[in-house]
């Protein structure tokens, strides 16, 4: 608990990316998007879905980490965001699992 009691220093004055960094990230994002869209045009077989999910996660982390400064900001923000994200993932996964796999219709 007391670990969240971060004093001010870390919060504002970490390493700050430059405009050039941002452009680089955007270029990577563009390439990843192109890769994603390519699944529509080319056949990737069973690799398609895992690849899309990995690409999505990477894009997510890039935007969150760099554009939203989560990499450089206080950990409190990361905790808030990832708590919400984790809650959403876990709760809705269980809900979908219960609806898909373990209701009466699924049993018959």
């Amino acid at each position: 608990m007391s670990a969240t009691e971060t004093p001010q220093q870390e919060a504002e004055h970490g390493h700050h990316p430059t405009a050039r960094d941002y452009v680089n990230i955007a270029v990577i994002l563009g390439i990843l998007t192109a890769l994603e869209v390519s699944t529509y045009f080319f056949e990737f077989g069973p690799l398609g879905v895992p690849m899309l999910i990995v690409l999505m996660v990477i894009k997510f982390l890039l935007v969150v980490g760099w554009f939203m400064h989560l990499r450089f900001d206080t950990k409190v923000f990361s905790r808030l965001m990832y708590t919400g994200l984790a809650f959403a993932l876990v709760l809705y996964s269980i809900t979908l699992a219960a609806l898909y796999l373990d209701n009466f219709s699924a049993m018959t």
Partner: protein
Amino acid sequence: MAAGAHETSLGIDHRKLGMWTFLGSEFLFFGAFLATFLLYVQTTAGGPGVEIFDIPFTSISSFVLLMSSLTMVLAHNAHTQGDLRRMRMWILATAGQGAVFLGGQVFEFNVFVREGLTFGTSPFATSFYVLTGFHGAHVFIGILLLLTLYTFSLTGKVKPNQPLKTEMIGLYWHFVDIVWVVLFTVVYLIPELTVLD
């Protein structure tokens, strides 16, 4: 909170902490609609299903929205350097790209409705429109915020030494963007691969 920020218990500005708290809860909001969409992705009641999606078209508007995050962060970068002129330019670019995305969505909805996918056609249709519609509403609010920021930076309500205001709106904008990163993959691309085969 320039003076105040350093006196808060966590050393963080209230508003930024509040914004992140809010964004944390937004995951639960979009998550529920997304889960609903996943549940109903094949429940088309005889109406159109995912084959109706125009992937190349949506890819372009998705790309535009993604790039608006770049201009947004550049606007913030300019504001931190006190350069309001460049900040305004990037803000307008961001709002413009948001508007392009939104226009694309309106166009897409119109096409779908003409092809027989109305709001009440099927659970698939309703969940699709509500999920992407709520995202569109978030984009719309984002554009309003950006234009407000633009105007206030002209009138002097937003000053060169207040980059936090741009940063806050940026956080919201990027959040809307990452939601679309997820939606684009889960709503459009993955069903296109799995459901259609």
